[in-house]
């Protein structure tokens, strides 16, 4: 049975609000994904509500997406909604020398000036993103990314969600263009877990990314022996998971 329309409220500005059973699923999914990360050994991180321009500058965000960031009203001055949760992590690790692999999970309201129609629930301008972020030796980061692809697929299946894991090339860092896209394709830097989400269509409910040393270089993050660190992340769009769950498996109550 489809959720009652009043449970999903989409405003023209690109924000979705869930009520009733839809809200129960939204909260449950975020909690379950956090628990999945904690059980895997990730430390919880509480990011600030907004992100200073300086961090996005340092991360090269405006080079890749000059018009995408959404300004935030903040007493601290020039700040934006985080385009992705993981930028907070690289900023926190600025200049650090890591004794070993670093694994954290965090969630925040993200903002992007996405090109969208008013009724497009699958492409929001404000959305909740939960991430698992891994920073450490490149081989460990790559293996951890692959583990998270498996974990996410298994979790989706466990709650009745069908999806397909597909390679993608629109990473959120670096310069645009065919060369970058082909390098990403060859190196398999990004996969997406795509799901059918009813009226929202096919959505990328999660992405699994390798950044190589891109962010580590920009934030001077190295291993204790001086070797370059690498980073990667698994990112989950909670609204998209909620829409997919409601569309694919009905509006029964979440498990208790």
């Amino acid at each position, binding site marked *: 049975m489809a959720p009652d329309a009043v449970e999903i409220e989409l405003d023209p500005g690109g924000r979705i609000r869930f009520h009733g059973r839809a809200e129960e699923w939204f909260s449950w999914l975020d909690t379950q994904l956090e628990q999945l990360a904690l059980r895997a050994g990730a430390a919880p991180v509480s990011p600030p509500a907004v992100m200073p321009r300086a961090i996005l500058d340092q991360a090269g965000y405006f080079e890749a997406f000059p018009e995408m960031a959404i300004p935030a009203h903040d007493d601290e001055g020039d700040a934006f909604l985080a385009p992705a949760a993981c930028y907070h992590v690289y900023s926190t690790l600025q200049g650090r020398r890591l004794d070993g692999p670093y694994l954290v999970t965090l969630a925040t309201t993200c903002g992007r000036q996405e090109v969208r129609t008013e009724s497009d629930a699958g492409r929001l301008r404000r959305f909740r993103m939960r991430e698992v972020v891994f920073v450490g030796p490149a081989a460990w980061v790559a293996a951890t990314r692959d583990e998270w692809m498996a974990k996410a697929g298994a979790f989706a299946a466990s709650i009745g969600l069908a999806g397909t894991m597909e390679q993608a090339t629109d990473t959120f860092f670096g310069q645009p*263009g*065919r*060369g*970058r896209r*082909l*390098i990403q*394709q*060859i*190196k*398999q830097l990004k996969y997406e877990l795509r799901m059918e989400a009813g009226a929202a269509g096919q959505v990328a409910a999660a992405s699994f990314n390798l950044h190589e040393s891109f962010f580590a270089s920009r934030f001077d993050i190295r291993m204790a022996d001086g070797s370059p660190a690498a980073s990667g992340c698994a990112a989950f769009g909670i609204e998209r998971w909620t829409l997919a769950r409601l569309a694919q498996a009905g509006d029964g109550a979440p498990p208790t």
Partner: protein
Amino acid sequence: MTALIDNLLEFVRHDLLHGRDVEVDADTSLFEQGMVDSLGILRLIAFLEIQIDRPIADAEVVMEHFRTIRTIDRRFGGENGNRGA
């Protein structure tokens, strides 16, 4: 050693690497330590297209085919009379 391997080795050593002091042979991984970057892959593809006399579709540009000069030769070396020189 095929003609395509010879030509690619020459191209990678002298054009992509600009004489940098990096050992490259037919089995060297092209995508470790930044040997081939986003501009380099476009130049490599352009060079290869000339060698095989046809355009290369994006879908063909995957690690299985581009990991090393030898894997490139395995995938594309039979085209346009490159094999067995």
